[in-house]
């Protein structure tokens, strides 16, 4: 038996799915397919009335979130296309990545759908990721890792090449999707706890469900690369990765102060940033580090919003738990 290698460059490899080397990737692919949804399944009519009733700062917060999510879903796709897909050999991973890329596109279209429906200044919203410094900083942080692949040559057979691969994965998967997006999801879902923007929250439910799989895949991929290539994770490199996460928390703190300069019912910037630190600790632990911040989760209500099975009064709310592709046997 030869040692499997999840990384590689040869396009000749990875053209046959069977035998499956990494069954976890195929499982994730199957679940991702079952999770397929479309933005138009959600009607936003009732949310429009809610949006009109929001305070100025609440409207600002929703707009700020959309302005950030919308371009960054596509940024994730670039990271996948340029930084992950070309360097992975296993066909089952390619299948999953293809589905994930469609999901990122679908998320972008979901935010477009909301942007086009809500009375939001779209021009300003589209410009924010450049004009708002805290947003631009996060974007620049991400883009610099993709540049390593797009503007320079990366040799995946070298230790340094593999490290660049891991850096990029940590940057977009663990940090962007696993920390930054998750803090935004919490803010977005908080409106539903006050019985506002319920249908928008249904879209977020679906997006979170997808993102949970993305994160699962990304962390599995990182762990597998590190296990197959023990030379990659030197002390120095480990410290670098850890610093990346800590830097990301600082950038997110600045961003959240712009998101909520004063506060809205149930939330202020300090509160969100405690949640960010809580998330960062979780991601650090999943990567094998000790936690940094040791804070508690301030948003206990996320147990209701996200952690439990939900029973839907289907005349009043959209059921986001359904899956496609029933099978006649298994």
């Amino acid at each position, binding site marked *: *038996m030869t040692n*499997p290698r999840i990384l590689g460059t040869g396009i000749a490899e990875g053209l046959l799915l069977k*035998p499956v*080397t990494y*069954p976890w990737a195929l*499982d994730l692919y*199957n*679940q991702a397919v*079952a999770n397929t949804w479309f933005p138009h399944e959600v009607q936003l*009519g009732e949310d429009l009335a809610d949006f*009109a*009733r929001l305070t100025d700062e609440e409207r600002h917060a929703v707009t700020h979130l959309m302005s950030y999510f919308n371009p960054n879903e596509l940024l994730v796709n670039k990271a996948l296309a340029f930084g992950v897909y070309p360097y992975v050999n296993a066909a089952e991973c390619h299948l999953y990545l293809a589905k994930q890329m469609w999901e990122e596109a679908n998320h972008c279209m979901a935010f477009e759908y909301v942007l086009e429906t809500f009375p939001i200044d779209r021009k300003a919203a589209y410009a924010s990721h450049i004009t708002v410094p805290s947003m631009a900083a996060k974007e620049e942080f991400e883009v610099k890792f993709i540049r390593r692949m797009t503007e320079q040559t990366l040799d995946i057979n070298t230790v340094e090449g593999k490290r660049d691969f891991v850096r990029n994965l940590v940057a977009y998967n663990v940090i962007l999707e696993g920390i930054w997006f998750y803090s935004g999801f*919490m803010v977005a879902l908080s409106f539903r*706890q*006050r019985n506002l923007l*319920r249908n928008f929250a249904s879209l977020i*439910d679906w997006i*979170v*469900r997808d993102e*949970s*799989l993305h*994160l*699962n895949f990304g*962390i599995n991929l990182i*762990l597998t690369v*590190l*296990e*197959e290539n023990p030379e990659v*994770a030197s*002390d120095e490199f*480990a410290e670098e990765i850890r610093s990346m996460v800590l830097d990301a928390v600082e950038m997110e703190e600045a961003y959240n102060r712009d998101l*909520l300069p*004063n506060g809205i*019912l*149930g939330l*202020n910037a300090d509160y969100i940033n405690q949640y960010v630190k809580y998330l960062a600790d*979780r991601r650090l632990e999943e990567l*094998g580090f*000790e936690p940094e911040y040791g804070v508690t*989760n*301030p948003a206990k209500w996320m147990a*209701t*919003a*996200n*952690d*439990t*099975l*939900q*029973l*839907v*009064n*289907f*005349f*009043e*709310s959209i059921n986001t*738990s*359904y899956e496609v592709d*029933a099978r*006649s046997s*298994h």
Partner: protein
Amino acid sequence: MTTIHVIKRDGTAVPYDGYEIARSIETAARGLDDSMARAVQIQSELEITLFDRMTTEQLDEAVIQVALQNVKEDPAFDTIAARLAVKGLYKRVFGATDDLFGDGSPDTIVALHRSRFDSYIHAGVSAGLLDARLAGTFRLDELAAALDPRRDDLLHYIGVATMRTRYLLTTAPNAAGARHPIEVPQFFWMRVAMGLSLNEADPSTAAIDFYHRMSRLEYLAAGSTLVNAGTAHPQLSNCFVMQTEDDIEHIAKSVRDVMWLTKGTGGIGLSMTKLRSEGSPIHSNNTASTGPIPFMHTIDSTLRAISRGGKKFGALCFYMENWHLDFAQFLDLRQNSGDPYRRTRTANTAVWISDEFMKRVRDDSPWYLFDPLDTPDLVELYGSAFSARYAEYVALAEAGKMPRYTMVRAREQFRSILVSLQTTSHPWLTWKDTINTRALNDNTGTIHLSNLCTEICLPQDRDNVAVCNLASINLSRHLQGAGADAVIDWERLRDSTRAAVRQLDNLIDVTLSSVPESQTSNTANRAIGLGVMGFTDIVERCGHAYDSEPAYDLIDEVMEFISYHAIDASADLARDRGAYPNFAGSGWSKGLVPIDTLDALARDRDVAVEVPRTMRLDWDVLRAKVTGGVRNATLLAIAPTASIGLVAGTTPGLDPRFAQLFSRATSAGKFLEVNPNLVADLKKLGLWDEVKEDLLAAQGDVSCIDAIPGHLRDVYRTSFQLSPYAFINVAARAQKWIDQAISRNIYLADRSVQGMAALYLKAWEMGVKTTYYLHMMPRHTAEQSTVRVNKAEKIRPGNAESTTSRPARHGFGFSGATLRSAPASVTPVVVRPLLESSVSVGVEVGVADGAACPTDPQELLQCESCQ
């Protein structure tokens, strides 16, 4: 932190006063365990959410939200939130008081209720919100004296929130679009009771009686009645049942009627079976029909355009028989992809299934689909007469004499129905022959469909839009004691049943219909449907498992009792007020009661109805009595009670606990619900604090929490752990006694379509008339936020024996620089390829699969046998 200012209602800013908040929370926590500690906790969690210049209303709401986020720790927090929310209603209706939360003294609250009731009624009438008769018909002082605000403490938070968003009468919207309630909960109950007593000889006495029963939550009227009773728009009926005829005038009229009925807040069942199929000839202009599908889309759109009673969007269920040539397209109506003009995003769908089809599935025979233009009499036939006529059409088709038809394997179509059901939860399966053959109201035509919630069985035609009027008895308010000592309070149950029947009968004389055809039907049939809620609640308190013989016997006995007394009450009303106009020729007039129709069904379909026939009461007396007249064409139906069950604070209808801890998404928001019976039982054993964290991690499934004793794990099995046959058994035992039907929700963990086929065949065999939503257990849910999650640490049950081994390390964990306690040796984990294995492990939460090694690297790290 900088000083926080709070903006009061008058616009002035005052510094945030922690002492005042603390006092208010303590008041709301009075009488609860650990009330001081809970108040301190809420206050400290509140203070991290504050921001400068928040309004007093925002502050009030923030306190409630903070209390609610702790419900997973203890249901006592729900009580605190509910009391604070009720207090908010007091403040809104009775006016602002000198501090942020008003005066909490119970005596003051009672006095305010009594002194303000009269002005509430008169102001409501002047504003055109209340029925003008409320001011002149009643002895208002007597009614005011009956008000008992202590009963507000019976409400859970979700009950208050539901009441607030759905039922309480509000002002017209102000400039900011906000509507404010003009009634507190006890005013609301009294308003509904008054609205249902207007036709009584002594309206005040009747209203006080209905008020006491509803405010004690012993039974509740259904949604539309709670919204509109006593108001200037008394559209009180709940369900409307109609069928579109195969002509363009009537299609247009159906669209119109759907709009009017929706505006009046009713739910609608609409059969489209009669419409000729796509491509069928239209002789008037020599073209071809587009079939029923585009019209269903048109009607679907109108549901979104008209909001129901101004409070939520319209709700409708399309019915179609599965021999219709366009049935395959009907199955696609709820798909989330495809041509949007051939989809119904809002409307639900149900299939109206014959015994003939079920037998063909059983026998693996072919199934023929026809154009209703060629087979116009099939919709009017049922049972063996349908089978005979269907066979003739099949023979014509096989002889080449049928212009248009297709043939499929019956099993293939059944499979398509079930696959659609699993992926979209539609269409619901309903059995037309069980319904029609068992009907006692069979003298006024064929029943062509059920209603929005599949519990109504009423005939309709071009001149009659069938109407039903619903109420539900809250079983949990009729059980005394706990465990082995638990007993039903039969006397109270009888009184509740009789009062509810009288109240429903009154409704028919008070209600105004928005469509003349429904007024006709309501007057001629006086159909009502009394049901129950709280079944699981009482089963748990008796210490039974939902899927046990004692539980099945309990529902059997309770429904026999309610059925008996409902029929008896209706027969008494007939003596007093006269039988319903269409009584002559009905099953009742022949001395039949619901249980008598079971054998007729078995004979007609020649398939046994597998359900015990035990009778505990003297039905012969009642058989004789009903020949002298009953007041109502139908009496019993078990509705879903998805909303009123929340106000009643109990489990809806016959539903099991969805999970012991779960979230509920409604139009009032998303709420965490933890089973108070389970918490009470665990507290008695001193186990609650130990297991509550595990309960959340396990998403409310106690079966995998070893610390909980086995018998409690049996009693508290949840929807997805129960055998789905339990839902069928409970429904079949209740259905014996019910002349209409049951909104039977089904919950399934297993996605095998063969398993579903066996289950639904069994439901038909056992005489279940209808099924309702199918809830599938999600295989994958989002990563939990409030539970400590490290995907790499998940210990798999199969490896329990190796807990003494060192903890696994992974990722960057071997790097000494980043670990506080570096391990002595470094052993990178090798991912073992499981080429030969196709076992599926991975993303499921809490899957116990000890036999196979995990393939997920995050889990593999924990599998000792792989290392």
